């Protein structure tokens, strides 16, 4: 038995949703049973270095990755050009030689992150690689071997250093799945609403849930079905339900600026049909999660959903605060015309409690529940995540929404079936109530207080929160640190 050698790969990542990067890769690796050795996991820099056993594994990993742009077989890296070249020269020949043989065409591309290099500079750098045993001919359009020399100049467009922080040489292997973001863009979706999840995040959710072909995926707060589309693309058969009759029948007011009326062709099933996925669409049902009508057997492989936060959509459940009228004839009410039952407010904690209970009874063992949890950043603590004795916490990734609030993508998986009496625990603050409070408070804050709040929760140049908190009052200089594993 030959020992399994690990090869080193550089994954160049998208510069967004940073907190989701590693969990997504871990989840995909678990899905395909790919053993991974983590070498470098920087906190902010847009790359990851890891070791895998074969190029096949790398391709499998990239076949689902939304946050990695490209995967390269790492030939060398260094803080300076000298270090890079000595690193490359120390590589075993059997790694590099087979790709530079006479029969294979090659090309070398110089890429710089956060700086533009002149063509003359790029050519000089390519020439510095001439010690490599290039035997084949150059093909700039469609080479067999594409070598990329990547120079990393940090993340601040205003603080570009003279020399790069780090340089890498890699052989391009395969791209990630970021082309799906445009293919499934909401801009061209037939039926959208104000709560539709964007394509990138819904694919990330499907990856967190390890959706595989032939599985059953459900969404108890389906809305316009945007999450189901991604699950269906990954091969799952999908069900969805919602308490909102109008949204399921596509009779709500259109949210597109130019659209005055809903057309007859809009529906959740039309969203799936648009991408050729209609054969995976099972059904949608108008149903109240507080009173589900599903048989109590575990038939679901994954629940992927975005429950209401209490801000734009009011959380609701069927009920009445009035005393029930006594019916003299005792006849059962027949519904001929659609009757929209009046709804009472249903606290956000109840929403999550019902969701977790549903997951505990209806997931198969090992099945996953992936959902967004609205969070007040100041008050957040891990113990506030809704829980159940049968569900274990796997991932917890934050996406910052405003200075005060964020949402966390929580992944729970089912370890065993619930016993009698076991129930969910959920204590979720309603963002509506807090939001109103903070909104009005914000206008009363002084300039100094506002600046202090802003410095506590920093944002990058696009206004996106960086997902971590600075220590009280101090500003951390962002430098290239060696990653902590």
């Amino acid at each position, binding site marked *: 038995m030959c020992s399994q050698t690990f090869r080193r790969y550089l994954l160049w990542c998208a510069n967004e949703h940073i907190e989701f990067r590693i969990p997504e890769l871990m989840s995909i690796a678990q899905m395909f049973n790919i053993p991974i050795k983590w070498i470098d996991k920087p906190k902010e820099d847009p790359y990851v270095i890891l070791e895998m056993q074969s190029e096949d594994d790398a391709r499998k990993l990239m076949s689902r990755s939304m946050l990695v742009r490209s995967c390269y077989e790492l030939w060398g890296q260094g803080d300076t050009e000298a270090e890079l070249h000595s690193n490359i020269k120390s590589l075993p020949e059997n790694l590099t030689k087979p790709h530079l043989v006479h029969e294979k065409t090659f090309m070398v591309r110089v890429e710089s992150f956060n700086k533009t290099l002149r063509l003359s500079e790029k050519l000089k750098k390519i020439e510095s690689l001439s010690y490599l045993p290039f035997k084949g001919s150059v093909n700039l359009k469609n080479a067999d071997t594409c070598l990329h020399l990547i120079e990393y100049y940090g993340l601040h467009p205003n603080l570009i250093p003279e020399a790069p922080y780090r340089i890498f040489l890699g052989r391009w292997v395969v791209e990630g799945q970021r082309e799906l973001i445009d293919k499934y863009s909401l801009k061209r979706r037939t039926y959208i609403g104000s709560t539709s999840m964007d394509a990138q995040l819904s694919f990330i959710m499907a990856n967190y849930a390890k959706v595989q072909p032939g599985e059953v995926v459900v969404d108890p707060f389906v809305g316009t079905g945007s999450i189901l589309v991604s699950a269906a693309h990954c091969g799952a058969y999908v069900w969805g339900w919602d308490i909102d009759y109008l949204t399921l029948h596509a009779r709500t007011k259109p949210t597109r600026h130019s659209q005055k009326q809903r057309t007859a062709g809009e529906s959740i099933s039309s969203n799936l049909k648009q991408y050729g996925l209609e054969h995976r669409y099972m*059904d949608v049902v108008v149903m109240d999660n507080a009173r589900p*009508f599903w048989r109590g057997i575990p038939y679901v492989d994954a629940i992927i959903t975005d429950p209401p936060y209490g801000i734009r959509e009011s959380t609701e459940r069927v009920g009445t605060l009035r005393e029930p009228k006594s019916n003299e004839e005792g006849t059962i009410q027949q519904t001929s015309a659609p009757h929209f*039952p009046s709804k009472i407010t249903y606290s956000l904690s109840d929403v999550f409690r019902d969701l977790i209970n549903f997951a505990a009874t209806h997931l198969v063992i090992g099945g996953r529940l992936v959902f967004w949890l609205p969070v007040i950043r100041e008050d957040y603590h891990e113990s506030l995540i809704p829980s159940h004795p049968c569900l274990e916490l796997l991932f917890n990734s934050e996406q910052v929404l405003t200075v005060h609030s964020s949402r966390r993508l929580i992944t729970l998986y089912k370890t065993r079936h619930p016993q009698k009496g076991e129930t969910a625990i959920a204590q979720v603050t309603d963002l509506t109530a807090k939001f109103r409070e903070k909104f009005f408070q914000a206008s009363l804050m002084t300039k100094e207080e506002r600046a202090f709040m802003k410095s506590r929760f920093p944002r990058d140049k696009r206004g996106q929160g960086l997902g971590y908190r600075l220590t009280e009052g101090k500003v951390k200089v962002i430098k290239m640190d060696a990653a902590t594993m």
Partner: protein
Amino acid sequence: SLKPNKHRNYEVYLLCLSSVIHYYFHTAAVTVLVVALKFHTIFLTIIKRMKLITHNMLTSKGMKNVIEGFPLKIQAEEVRNVDIEFDREFISRMVPKLDWNALIFAAQCVGHQEDLPEILPEGYENDDDLLKKLHHILLEVEVINGCLECPETKRKFPISNGIPNMLLNEDEV
């Protein structure tokens, strides 16, 4: 002389005829075009419907005073057949989750009794014939309009556009 006159009449006659045809043909074409444009979205609409596989998972047990609540009775006004790719992996995985008697009952309700066996036989994973029949019943027979009826309270849950409405009214909660 006579010939030129004949010709002239013939010409006039042809002109009238052609203009009449042109007039009618023209409007017909325009009408067809207008009708097509207005209603093409409806023609292209997927007529929405409920599948029997969903019925197999639904129960009214959560209602007040209901003990079993399963299976619900299907009263279908419109049923149709569609063509869905056969996925043998998926069907074999679903079989252990199905309630077989409820499936037979549902097939009867929509008039698609077929020749499903009374009891699920052993070794169904290898019986391609059975799996294909199951696939047809579960995924290819669709209820467009009608309702689902609770076996105990007789409460009807309407299906419109293929979407069952399982919401209870305020006084039933």
